């Protein structure tokens, strides 16, 4: 005789219970499942992609109608349970009563509604299920403004989704920084910055006083009397276990429904699972422990011994496209030490908390690839004193081995957990691969690894790569070139942290696959090395593109162009005469005035270069670096010298800047402009760095462009004196030199690190001075005329020999 099992609630936990139960003994129970929502089990974690439009509901269904039918499960979806009658062993639904032998309560949780005036107005919704999601999608369709109350995971997902759908979104968060339970302040700041870049306004320390409106919500009033307009309010301040049915049935309920390690409530025939339960005083919100519970429930239902153990938890989340991870205890405290790593170029933040030579907590933001390894160190209380120096760089940097990102994964033991949601270990994935699952989809289908929240997708792919070798192509973040798997950012990090000061050192330490690089990586490496080690490293001309090696721009017919520098665009009759003479002497076919306020001599033969440079040198002119990834020109207007509107000596300042910056190498070309007044005749606001003089001083702005992209600069700071301008511009240039990816202009780099971060660096006066000093150190080597140097070795510009003469003999 089959027993009767009734399940109340079709969430992720109960869905998993049914799977385990049917897998082990499909004949044990006649199953009836109630769900207040008019649908079956779906992957609730994936509601955010549905909200943002990346996925559809159909894609996140975990159990469809066919599945229930195949397994003979009676579905009572869309029907509320009215009460549980434990004496009669019956569940009373709106449409009738069902008998049970065993009952499973999986009612999940209910959103917490803050008890403020206006909470019941139309347009005030929570974010819990598909209906809420659809309500938000519908509201977003009308556009307008949304206020999300609560800066935890759910609130931020809602905010990002609504912003994606075109609403103007403000997040109100009571605490000082976002997701304060998972993140420390710095990571919270990065998250906030990323959200703000997506157009979401974030207000921390914001306490909601009332929701305003007649019938439909119109606004939100904060405790400090700030008023915000709102067409939609999403309340996402938290959840509490849904315990009403259990309460009414007189089961033991504290904060949640109390269960023992077998997941039984105070009535042994009534079990509970998921977010509605309380075990040993703890509540559960993450999916991993819920799945563990589900396993135990199934075993208890089948009279098998099983014990639920609450494990050390780590949180690895993807919030609106930003990877973050936290584990253990990361509060500051006596006897605790921090190791912090920041890579603003990639928006990466890592913080490790150590106590007694053990790692006790970790927070990672932006790059969570090594999180499993760190979590293992925390869980196993591994002593880390010996690897402390390189600990922060993760497992692949330990023991001085090559920085193959796969080594870390290869080194994991078989019982290392890869998919936290589903409790899938590396060994299970390897077994699945051995059994024929050769791509991510197949592994996911067989093991469920990476099938829930998806944050371990990269790890699963790496296990595939390690196991299958060359048969699996790992979709990594873009490496520099085919010579290495490293990204530009990794490379810069290695060069700095491992103090790599020569190309062979980099090739060795970073496991280059070619003997001496290629035309893609060598110029980048040459730049990184000379920017980070100006004194130790010597520029390698053979790793430069022809223009920078020859200090002239190659033209399509193999001739070159020669551009002498004209400081700040100022020239003299003597200089012009020398240029004219040179053009005559070397039969220069084209003489052109450039956009950078100087003169270009086009069509000079390669072998004539040293001679024409020599002539120009003798007239007092030097290379204009018109060919370099470095300082090009400082464009100026005439300023107070002649202009009736000029407020400062813009020409003089431009010349000073050009004299300070010339010869410097930067990740990409660097153009400056100095305008004497806001009329901006020097077009300073579309330069990489622009200075606009005003009566009270100088506005310094950065990140302009007027090429393939056209962009206006954004204000960095305003200063009062020329000396401050000089220091800020040098510090700014150095910051760019030290951090940007090769071939990124300032605007591109700024889009990655954010103007705020740049401002912070420059506003910090000690840091500003240090940056300017490092720039000056580098300039002490590079502020020189390459033409004069090359004139000395003019021979090398000539041919090795002339066989035509011999032939003629």
């Amino acid at each position, binding site marked *: 005789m089959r027993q009767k099992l009734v399940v109340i609630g079709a969430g992720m936990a109960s869905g998993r219970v049914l799977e385990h139960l049917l897998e082990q003994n499909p004949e044990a129970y006649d199953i009836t499942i109630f769900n207040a929502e008019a649908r079956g089990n779906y992957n609730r974690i994936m509601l955010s992609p549905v909200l943002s439009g990346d996925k559809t509901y159909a894609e996140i269904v975990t159990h469809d109608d066919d599945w229930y039918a195949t397994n003979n499960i009676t579905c009572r979806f869309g029907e509320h349970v009215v009460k549980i009658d434990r004496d009669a062993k019956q569940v009373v639904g709106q449409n009738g009563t069902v008998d049970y032998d065993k009952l499973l309560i999986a009612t999940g949780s209910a959103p917490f509604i803050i008890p403020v005036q206006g909470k019941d107005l139309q347009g005030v919704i929570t974010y819990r299920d598909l209906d809420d999601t659809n309500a938000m999608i519908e509201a977003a369709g009308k556009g307008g403004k949304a206020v999300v109350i609560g800066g935890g995971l759910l609130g931020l997902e809602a905010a990002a989704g609504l912003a994606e759908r075109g609403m103007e979104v403000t997040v109100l968060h009571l605490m000082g920084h976002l997701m304060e339970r998972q993140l420390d302040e710095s990571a919270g700041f990065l998250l906030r910055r990323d959200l703000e870049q997506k157009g979401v306004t974030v207000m921390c320390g914001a306490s909601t006083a009332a929701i305003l409106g007649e019938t439909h919500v119109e606004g939100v009033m904060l405790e400090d009397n700030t008023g915000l307009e709102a067409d939609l309010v999403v309340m996402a301040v938290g959840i509490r276990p849904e315990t009403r049915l259990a309460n009414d049935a007189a089961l033991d309920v504290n904060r949640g429904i109390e269960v023992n390690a077998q997941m039984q409530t105070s009535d042994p025939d009534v079990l509970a699972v998921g977010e509605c339960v309380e075990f040993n005083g703890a509540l559960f919100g993450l999916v991993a422990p819920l799945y563990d519970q589900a396993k135990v429930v199934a075993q208890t239902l089948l009279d098998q011994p099983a014990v639920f153990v609450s494990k050390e938890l780590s949180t690895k989340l993807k919030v609106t496209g930003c990877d973050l991870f936290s584990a253990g205890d990361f509060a500051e405290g006596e006897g605790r030490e921090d190791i912090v790593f920041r890579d603003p170029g990639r928006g990466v933040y890592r913080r490790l908390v150590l106590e007694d030579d053990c790692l006790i907590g970790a927070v990672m933001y932006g790059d969570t690839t090594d999180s499993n390894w760190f979590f293992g160190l925390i869980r196993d209380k591994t002593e880390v004193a010996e690897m402390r120096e390189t600990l922060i760089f993760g497992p692949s940097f330990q023991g001085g081995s090559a920085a193959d990102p796969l080594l870390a994964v290869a080194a994991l033991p078989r019982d290392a957990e890869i998919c936290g949601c589903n409790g899938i270990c590396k060994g299970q994935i390897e077994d699945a691969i051995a059994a024929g699952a050769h791509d991510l989809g197949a592994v996911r289908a067989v093991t469920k690894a990476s099938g829930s929240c998806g944050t371990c997708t990269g790890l699963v792919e790496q296990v595939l790569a390690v196991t299958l070798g060359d048969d699996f192509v790992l979709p990594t973040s873009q490496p520099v070139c085919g010579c290495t798997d490293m990204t530009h950012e990794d490379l810069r990090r290695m060069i700095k942290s491992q103090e790599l000061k020569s190309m062979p050192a980099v090739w060795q330490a970073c496991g280059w696959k070619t003997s*001496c690089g*290629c*035309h893609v990586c060598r110029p980048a490496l040459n730049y990184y090395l000379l920017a980070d080690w100006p004194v130790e490293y010597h520029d390698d001309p*053979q790793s430069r593109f*022809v223009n920078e090696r020859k200090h002239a721009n190659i033209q399509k017919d193999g001739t070159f162009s020669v551009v002498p520098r004209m400081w700040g665009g100022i020239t003299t009759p003597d200089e012009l005469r020398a240029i004219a003479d040179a053009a005559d002497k070397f039969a220069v076919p084209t003489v052109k005035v450039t956009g950078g306020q100087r003169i270009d001599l086009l069509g000079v033969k390669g072998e004539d270069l040293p001679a024409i440079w020599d002539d120009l040198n003798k007239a007092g002119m030097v290379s204009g670096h018109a060919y370099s990834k470095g300082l090009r020109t400082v464009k100026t207007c005439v300023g107070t010298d002649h202009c009736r509107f000029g407020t400062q000596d813009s020409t003089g300042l431009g010349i000073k800047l050009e004299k300070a910056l010339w010869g410097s190498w930067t990740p990409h070309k660097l153009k400056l402009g100095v305008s004497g007044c806001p009329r901006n005749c020097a077009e300073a606001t579309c330069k990489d760095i622009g200075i606009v003089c005003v009566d009270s001083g100088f506005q310094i702005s950065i990140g302009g462009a007027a090429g393939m992209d056209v962009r206006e600069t954004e204000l960095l700071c305003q200063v009062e004196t020329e000396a401050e301008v000089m220091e800020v511009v040098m510090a700014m240039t150095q910051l760019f030199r030290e951090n940007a990816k090769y071939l990124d202009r300032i605007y591109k780099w700024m889009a990655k690190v954010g103007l705020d971060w740049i401002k912070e660096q420059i506003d910090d006066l000690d840091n500003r001075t240090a940056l300017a000093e490092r720039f000056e150190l580098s300039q002490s080597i590079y502020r020189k005329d390459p033409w004069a140097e090359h004139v000395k070795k003019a021979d*090398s510009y000539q041919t090795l020999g002339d*066989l035509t003469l011999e032939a003629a003999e």
Partner: protein
Amino acid sequence: MSTLMNDWIDISPLDAIPQRGARLLRTIHGCVAVFRTAKDEVFALDNACPHKNGPLAEGIVHGSAVTCPLHNWVISLETGEVQGADEGQVATYPARVEDGRIWVEASRLRRRAVA
């Protein structure tokens, strides 16, 4: 042909070309680029990329290949063959290093085109 293969000419000291660099040799067929690799091997090839006649001597030398400075075609210094997805062939001439000097076999460089 075999008799003509004896026309080896001493071109210059090896140090006249930087490692991973190249210099030109003027011939009746146009310029020939003489390359020196990081391992001090030398190669002589026509100084014209089969793509758009880019000056190969100005390219970046890596391993035993050079990347054309105009459009990044990669050419094997050993065979003159274009590498990767592109197709083409650059004429090569025998070259070697002996006693620190570069020698090039010039029989084909000093004669008028045969075909």
